[in-house]
């Protein structure tokens, strides 16, 4: 995307100005978004995003600049400005002299699309969306169906003064269906939004009619659901997107962004038991076509499969370059950013609880009264206190070991380490789901996942 000579000059000038490490990140996105509401195209949009971010390290102090003027004059001016910001202009660091010998690494296309961004016309997309809409019409109470189709094609180059040169291409597609059901009792929603690192062949993995049907059924379930009960009780969390609970309660506490500053309740706990023995927690950036997969992270490091917790014992954190400098932990290819407007930090990729051995049915046995959180919405955590919350999109009462009437509007809240210790059984039916995770370095595609699992007690927020 940029001439090697220009990249080299930028990095060299930064080094000459006293930085001990310089990293240039360049990207070009093409995006498409289509929103269709009950048969009508409401908005269709296409865009090009294009920019560069330059990050200079002075020990563990960082200066960062970004621009979307990528002309040589602009990039060199940005470099000078950064060097001046640090107050080190005029200094000449001998380390910056001599040529850079880039070790070029280009993505192998492990997650490459079969149907690329430019293939198929827009009418084809519209037809497939109409299948999702038709699928959602599961009852006369379904009043509106909104379908969003998002397509991203991102080309990335990361080059550093240490000789890294990594080129990656990330194609992602997501179909997102919201069904709205209404009767005299009110208006309720059902939402299903699969996404993967691939092109329009997403429609083969997740047939739009089936995605729509699930959203429609969920809206109907919520319409006949009573408000959720309130109080502390046992909860069985469904597989797939249910994994969002551990994304919040556990994942964020294991990013060096908080760990390095001792701002996580799980800092300095390597080798210690931090979760119940039935918990093995993995963050994998290499899952084939995973929504959060990429061949290189946004610092130019190859991604990897990182075992974070094994049988309840903390094995690794998620480590970016700055986190590694601050803590001494080995980088795990976890440096990610939304786009060039953010400096990278340590972030999750595809994170899941590994399957256990308890059959799903056994989880419900022995529960006199509890909640089955079959599908989850998003959540949030404060790593410093471990307090987290997440919303239940589809829930049912468990009575005498049986799944009974649906309830809506439940929110589960707790403190991370406590509820992880209270996971008493994990089933064998691992599934994953796509989500967007917002944090310091922006909003990123991540996968969350888990098998069905049982938490012995947790606060359920509903109607008292």
């Amino acid at each position: 995307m940029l001439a090697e000579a220009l990249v080299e000059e930028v990095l060299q000038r930064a080094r000459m100005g006293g930085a001990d490490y310089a990293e240039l990140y360049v990207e070009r996105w093409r995006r498409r978004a289509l929103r269709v509401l009950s048969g009508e195209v409401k908005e269709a949009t296409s865009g090009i995003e294009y920019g560069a971010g330059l990050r200079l390290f002075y020990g563990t102090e960082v200066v960062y600049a970004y621009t979307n003027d990528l002309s040589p004059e602009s990039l060199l001016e940005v470099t000078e400005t950064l060097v001046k910001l640090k107050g080190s202009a005029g200094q000449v660091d001998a380390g910056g002299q001599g040529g850079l010998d880039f070790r070029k690494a280009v993505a192998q296309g492990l997650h490459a699309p079969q149907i690329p961004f430019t293939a198929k016309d827009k009418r084809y997309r519209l037809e497939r969306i109409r299948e999702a809409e038709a699928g959602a019409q599961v009852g006369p109470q379904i009043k509106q169906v909104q379908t969003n189709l998002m397509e991203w094609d991102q080309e990335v180059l990361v080059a550093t003064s240490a000789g890294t040169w990594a080129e990656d291409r990330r194609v992602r597609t997501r179909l997102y269906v919201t069904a709205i059901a209404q009767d005299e009792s009110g208006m309720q929603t059902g939402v299903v939004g699969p996404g993967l690192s691939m092109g329009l062949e997403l429609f083969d993995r997740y047939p739009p009619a089936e995605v729509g049907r699930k959203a429609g059924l969920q809206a109907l379930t919520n319409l006949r659901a009573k408000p959720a009960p309130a109080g502390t009780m046992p909860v069985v969390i469904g597989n797939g997107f249910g994994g969002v609970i551990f994304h919040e309660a556990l994942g964020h506490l294991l990013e060096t962004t908080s760990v390095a500053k001792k701002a996580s309740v799980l800092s300095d706990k390597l080798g210690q038991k931090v979760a119940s023995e039935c918990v093995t927690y993995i963050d994998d950036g290499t899952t084939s076509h995973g929504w959060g997969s990429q061949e290189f992270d946004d610092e130019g490091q190859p991604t990897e499969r990182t075992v974070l917790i094994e049988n309840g014992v903390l094995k690794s954190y998620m480590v970016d370059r700055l986190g590694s400098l601050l803590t001494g932990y080995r980088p795990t290819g976890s440096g990610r950013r939304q786009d060039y407007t953010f400096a990278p930090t340590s972030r999750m990729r595809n994170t899941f609880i590994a399957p256990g051995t308890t059959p799903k049915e056994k989880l419900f046995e022995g529960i006199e009264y509890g909640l089955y959180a079959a599908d989850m919405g998003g959540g949030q955590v404060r790593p410093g206190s471990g307090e987290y919350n997440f919303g239940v999109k589809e829930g049912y009462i468990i009575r005498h070991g049986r799944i009974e009437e649906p309830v809506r509007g439940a929110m589960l809240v707790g403190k991370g380490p406590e509820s992880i210790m209270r996971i008493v059984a994990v089933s064998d039916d691992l599934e994953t789901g796509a989500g967007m995770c917002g944090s310091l370095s922006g909003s990123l595609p991540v996968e969350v996942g888990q098998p069905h699992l049982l938490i012995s007690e947790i606060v359920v927020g509903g109607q008292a």
Partner: protein
Amino acid sequence: MTFEQARDYLLQKARAMGVDAEVLATHTRELTVQAHGGRVEEITQATQGGVGVRVVVGGKTGYAYTEERTLEALDWVLAEAHENALLQSEGGGFLPEGGELGQHDLLGEGLSAPLEQKRQAALDVEAGLRADPRMRQVQMTRYSENETQAALGSTRGVWGAYRNGYSALMAYAVMGQGQSLKQSFELDVSKEFHALDPGRTAQEFIRKTGRLLGARPLKTGRYRAYFEPKAFGPLLAMMGMYMLSAKNVLEGKSLLANKIGQKIASDIFTLVDDPTLPGGLASRPFDAEGTPARRTVLIEKGVLRTFAHNSETARKMGVENSGHASRSYKGVLGIAPTNLFVEPGRGVELDDGIVITDLMGLHAGANPISGEFSLQALGLRVEGGEMAYPVENFTVAGNFLELLTHITALGTELEWNPMMGIVGTPMVEVDELSFAGA
């Protein structure tokens, strides 16, 4: 090529193609200084901009944008927007007629302090926080500033530009007392760098977070709720504005459809949006379609007066356009409030209930379509008119429209909150809500 040149090129080319087009070009400069451990750990300096186009062909609307300013990219933008428009089956799209709106400067010299003072401000917030012995971790403190120039033009005659911006101080830290830990943030925003006060930001953080230490579980039950502005503002912005957006009303997603002129809230509740507020953080001379700014009373003494409109929704509903069009260069035509506020009341007298200081998990636990919310909260138990002790690990739940009718008192002072839009509210007392805890 500058963004203004890109705008002019796109308009000229659209005219030549015989299509209507509206071009929004923005250019932003940002600076952030982040402190940690008594030193500046990160400085970010940035410029960013782009052009976004809305094209209308035979009543059909399409969008496209680019940050790359080559002729090739600009041509692609027009071709894609045109193709996107043709996907619509429904007509009725149009660009509003407009005129010369002038060049406005809403920022002035507000950010013109030297970098050294800005670095010092970030360091001073941290020093202020660390002065309290209960401070366990300061994750970071940050000074940030933003200066944005927006230029709008259309083939229908709209032409105008303005410059706006802000400066902000943020604190993000953990306080502790024994085993009890509380993490929070404090954000102060101003158009004037010199109006920011690092000592005040640190003190406010300490006051608001320190009082939550040693929190106890809350017993499940129904209690009177006293929402502090920091808790009520984001809930109002998310639920209320969603329902008041005429776009959501027309798309069948608002519970307030068909309720104009009806009583939907307590008699003491008046909700206003005012883009003309002098010095308002969200003030602007015209909206994203070039409709001049004016004050709108959305809810007056509990009665729903109007929805927030853009030209498209106003025409469809046959009412006057309130000038609430919003769009970024990357986005599509939408509706957004500016300086949204609840008129203060006669004061709240604490009696018995829960003061809610923070609400968390709005994106997961509040559904603006159903109006239902169940949210993690932090707060203080009030007994016999006194703040008795802090409480934690509980949720507060209800229906937002029911909540509005159950407002029994409003505080006398308006506090502006910049977390989710720019929302001003006083303290809000609700006679009874459902709390889930131990």
